[in-house]
């Protein structure tokens, strides 16, 4: 068992996601208590004390984001749960929506109360079918029980929530693009400053948090920030939902206490590499987090500081396991095709640069690569870093630099022999 549990601490019965079951587990008790005994600033303080970092990718402390908002400044504020979940390899917010939708809703209510929010949104990716149905049902259950609407549970606090479906755009997961999308515009990321907590949705102070981040809030308010901080490591409090996929024997969503050893996690909890093969590489937190070879990752524990130390990150928690025999040149080609396709086109380094990288890798795949191509690839990738409006351009660069750093010999081999060192394979027939 990978440590203590916060989000997944209940049996997954067929009715576990319904209101009655959630209430039987003590659900919405925290809300009732908070509305009558806590001030908004107390909620914010607990979240600051908890030290919880965002689970959407950047690991920014949620409390520090919230502190920027003054719940009493008299203007409208907004709260958005980011359930766009587009980062390749990531499917853990889907788990929250499907199995713990009321945990998310109670958390959002607490957050809304703390931040002085009257209207909340759940921005869910447009493709999601069952997660959408589950969260819709949960919202209706919560309204019917009086947890949303006017003067909730006899208090002076009123709050509404609207589920908003995206329409197929990775970049709309980026918080400011998401807000533009909500406003009925193209999902173009905005230049910062101003921060969204100062000028967000319709220029009002807006908090955008990842779905998993928010789902933790009910536990934090119930047990206190200090109790949350006592879980995990000093620099990475709490647990994380890791969605693990690729060449792994038991893919799925696992809740892991921060600091849990990667090797134990992969081998004991997830059944190891599929088909008993050797591990070749791991993308630890969605394709935007740089890839790591076994000799580095096998010594790490699952917390932010360990992964930052080796120039990667736990990112969105989307862990992709890659077995021996997989062609890294093709793997990079898949990633670059994705970033090229999803670039919104606002910034030259991303629009042109990622396009160039995509074309270079295609050239190499077609046996027409040259040695200068690798240098060009690296040069463009480095140039992208920090020169764009949002993190998409950076991510494409970081993924490229990471893979070249650890697997350059495969690219050299492909260029000089005009064929893959690994037969160009991505799929492995793994008897699992």
């Amino acid at each position, binding site marked *: 068992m990978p440590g203590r549990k916060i989000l997944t601490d209940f049996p997954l019965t067929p009715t576990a996601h319904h209101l009655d079951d959630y209430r039987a587990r003590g659900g919405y008790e925290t809300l009732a208590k908070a509305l009558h005994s806590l001030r908004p600033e107390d909620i914010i303080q607990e979240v600051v004390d908890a030290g919880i970092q965002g689970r959407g990718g950047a690991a920014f402390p949620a409390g520090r984001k919230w502190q920027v908002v003054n719940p009493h400044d008299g203007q409208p504020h907004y709260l958005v749960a980011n359930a766009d979940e587009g980062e390749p390899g990531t499917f853990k917010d889907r788990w929250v929506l499907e199995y713990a939708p009321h945990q998310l809703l109670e958390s959002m209510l607490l957050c809304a109360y703390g931040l002085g929010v009257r209207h909340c949104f759940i921005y869910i990716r447009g493709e999601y079918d069952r997660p959408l149905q589950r969260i819709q049902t949960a919202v209706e259950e919560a309204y019917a029980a009086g947890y949303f609407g006017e003067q909730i549970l006899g208090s002076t606090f009123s709050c509404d929530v609207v589920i908003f479906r995206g329409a197929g755009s990775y970049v709309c997961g980026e918080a400011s693009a998401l807000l533009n999308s909500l406003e*009925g515009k193209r999902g173009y990321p905005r230049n910062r400053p101003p921060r969204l907590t100062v000028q967000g949705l319709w220029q009002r102070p807006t908090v955008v948090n990842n779905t998993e981040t928010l789902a933790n809030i009910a536990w934090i308010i119930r047990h206190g920030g200090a109790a949350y901080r006592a879980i995990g490591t000093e620099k990475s409090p709490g647990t994380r939902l890791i969605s693990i996929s*690729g060449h792994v024997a038991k893919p799925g969503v696992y809740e892991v206490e921060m600091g849990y050893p990667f090797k134990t996690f992969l081998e004991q909890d997830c059944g190891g590499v599929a088909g008993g093969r050797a591990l070749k590489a791991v993308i630890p937190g969605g394709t935007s987090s740089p890839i790591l070879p076994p000799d580095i990752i096998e010594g790490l524990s699952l917390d932010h500081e360990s992964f930052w130390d080796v120039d990667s990150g736990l990112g969105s928690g989307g862990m992709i396991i890659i077995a021996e025999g997989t062609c890294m040149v093709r793997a990079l080609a*898949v990633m670059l095709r994705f970033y090229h396709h999803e670039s919104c086109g606002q910034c030259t380094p991303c629009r042109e640069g990622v396009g160039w990288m995509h074309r270079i890798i295609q050239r190499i795949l077609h046996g027409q690569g040259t040695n200068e191509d690798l240098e060009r690839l690296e040069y463009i990738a480095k140039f992208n870093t920090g020169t764009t409006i949002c993190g998409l351009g950076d991510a494409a660069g970081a993924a490229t630099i990471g893979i070249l750093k650890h697997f350059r010999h495969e690219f050299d081999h492909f260029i000089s022999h005009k064929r893959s060192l690994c037969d160009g394979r991505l799929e492995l027939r793994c008897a699992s």
Partner: protein
Amino acid sequence: MKHLIPEFEALKQRLPLEGLNGVLLLPCLHRIQQERGYIHDEDIAFLADYLAMPAIQIIEALSFYTMLRRAPIGRWHLQLCHNLPCALCGSDNLFDYLHERLGIRPGETTPDGRFTLSAVECLGCCGTAPVMMINETYHEQLTLESLEALLKELN
């Protein structure tokens, strides 16, 4: 699409007043597409009027979001994921199979108008890769056999 107005009006109940028309745009487009299968010029004119918004703003949005279509497609929309985790679990073989079986590549529709194939990016369901959506429903852990069984059911 005037018959949808009561539904659209109902959406307003839980929305804030500021920015109301803008925030309704994507939900209205989704709903119209569900009804007609794509967004027609007529729908743009209707929404421009209903939401008191320049038609160009609607056209801009339409050109940005991949799920919104300006033209009809086949009866069954096969959206097979080709991102990394699905590729690691064999989605390329499924594309080859679909090409062999239906004669179409991503972006194409069968001449009888039954199937449209799209290659899509990560569907957020990689734990049960490879994954394909058929119209609005996910189908997971696909194999050549289960894919064939699905195709036989679609008429």
